């Protein structure tokens, strides 16, 4: 019997290349997160798949050359509890079949933990894409990507699910520039929201104010805040100010101000609309947001008011009037 080893804060070792995991052969590690490792693998037919392994760093430790992680008895309850979250993700994804939502193919148990097999697509995350292709982030790119992405999000919401962790690193870009929603690790069934089973999980900058306080207010509008923040991040190249600090002191420069003339007023206005701190002022449904994104761009008024403050006031007035 080995004495309980303290869980060192070191990264878990991935399964080795060539390892036969159930019916799949591990090719390489794709990513390593705090809760999971994602592998590229091939199935029995030689088809590429992505396999996500539940392996929370702080609770289960896999040393070099080991296959089964070490889980000390004291960590077992927490390990099993976290597994519930992993199941939530699988449960959420299993019910979705949409070209803009990652498809789950299989779920199985091995090596004292659980694995989720997903389709593998060639591409990169929107975050990586934006960092490497700043000039490609045009008005059309933004509208095309986000309108399609919203098709996927609409599907999610129509199943009474919320994604709750939308951000550019959870949006995958296929090589043909069609977006794919991935990582439903935070997804929850909204119907069960009155009996919170799981701890909140969010990413600062992309999480709505409701994520931080009043979680009972979470709704489609919360994912819409995250869409707005993602659009903002695409233009800015970095995450916007986190909602909790915005509630204290809002220092977020409105998109309308920051990128005026670079993009259409309508697009920038839509981003600012999504980023309203008060959830009631945001688009209330994905459909409403999609409508705003697909409307033809209005020709710019010939005359503009002097000074940006005047413009903002004008926009706000216009928006309030249209409600």
């Amino acid at each position, binding site marked *: 019997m080995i004495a309980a080893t303290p869980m060192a804060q070191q990264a878990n070792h991935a399964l080795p290349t060539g390892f036969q995991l159930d019916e799949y052969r591990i090719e390489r590690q794709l990513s390593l997160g705090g809760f999971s490792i994602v592998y590229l693998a091939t199935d029995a037919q030689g088809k590429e798949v992505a396999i996500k392994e539940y392996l929370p760093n702080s609770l289960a430790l896999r040393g070099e050359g080991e296959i089964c992680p070490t889980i000390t008895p004291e960590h*077992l*309850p927490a390990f*099993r*509890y976290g*597994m*519930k979250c992993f*199941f*939530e993700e*699988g*449960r959420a994804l*299993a*019910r*979705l*079949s949409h070209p803009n939502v990652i*498809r*789950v*193919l*299989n*779920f*199985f*148990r091995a090596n004292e933990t*659980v694995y989720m097999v997903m389709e593998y697509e060639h591409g990169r995350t929107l975050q990586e894409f934006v960092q490497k292709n700043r000039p490609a982030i045009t008005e059309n790119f933004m509208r095309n990507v986000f309108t399609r992405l919203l098709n996927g999000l609409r599907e999610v919401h129509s199943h009474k699910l919320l994604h709750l962790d939308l951000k550019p690193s959870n949006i995958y870009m296929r090589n043909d520039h069609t977006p794919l929603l991935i990582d439903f690790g935070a997804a929850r069934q909204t119907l*069960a929201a009155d*009996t*919170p*089973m799981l701890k909140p999980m969010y990413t600062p900058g992309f999480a709505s104010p409701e994520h931080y306080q009043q979680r009972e207010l979470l709704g489609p509008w919360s994912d819409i805040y995250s869409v707005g923040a993602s659009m903002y991040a695409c233009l800015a190249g970095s995450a916007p100010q986190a909602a909790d600090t915005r509630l204290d002191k809002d220092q977020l420069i409105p998109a309308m101000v920051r990128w005026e003339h670079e993009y259409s007023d309508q697009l920038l206005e839509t981003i600012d609309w999504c980023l309203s701190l008060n959830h009631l002022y945001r688009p209330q449904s994905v459909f409403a947001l999609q409508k705003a994104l697909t409307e033809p761009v209005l020709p710019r008024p010939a005359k503009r008011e002097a000074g940006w403050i005047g413009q903002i006031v004008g926009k706000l007035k216009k928006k309030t009037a249209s409600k």
Partner: protein
Amino acid sequence: MKFTIFQESRRGRRANNEDRLGYCYSRDALLMVVADGMGGHYYGEIAAQIAVQTLTGAFQREALPQLQDPFLFLQKAISNAHSAIRDYSSEQRLNDSPRTTVVACIVQDNVAYWAHAGDSRLYLMRDGRMLARTRDHSRVQLLIDQGAISEAQATSHPERNRIWSCLGGEQAPEIEFSRKTPLENGDVLVLCSDGVWGPMPGELMAMSLKDANLMQAVPMLLSQAEVRAGTHADNLSMIAVRWEDSYFDQTTSAVSTKTMPIDAITTHLDQFGRNPAYKSELTDDEIERAIAEINHAIQKFSK
């Protein structure tokens, strides 16, 4: 685990059906049980019912998803069933305690373990032949073993229904255990009451069940047995399982509704996740159920 299973029970020409039967399975273990309540005693069907419920109940509690020791499980569960019948008859102040036979079989890790008391039988069939069967705890079986009578004579012997071990009697049952018997792909296990094996030779059953669809073959065999028994047909009960390999596939197992609802282990998948118990720890069983539920949803929504 992958298997096909079918069970059916018929009244025959009797007024009541005093046979009870059932099966249940977790991901890694299968239990089948047949009990034949004794007609000479009051409440025979209650004794049989208690026996089946006691075994399936214990299985649902302990097969999570495997049993630690299948023989120990069978021994304890059958003894408990005997005590439960005794308790019932003293609570009800019955003059004569109800009695029942029992035959029960566990399959786990491709190995079969069975036990019986009385004259309900288990057959193991491979390639259309009888590979093994239980020895009845009956007087005629003793006479056969002593060479006093032949198998053929036994079928019409006046004392063929007298058994010396059962559940619910004054004396504790003598439980006879099998060896650990590894199963091969295609093996068929049959558990049945004497209403089936009496008129129906084992060799014939083995041939009929070879490569047959159990959902058709079992009812056909019961009909044949019923016809052969004629006007004296006893209650007929039969569970047949064909072992396929070590993968569990829900879609291949047919569930009969004729017995008690014992399928809780496998089919109540939707319960998982609705329990708002915030800090509760997942059991192995819940993990299996969650995975089964997710895979079910994947299949359902991928069409």
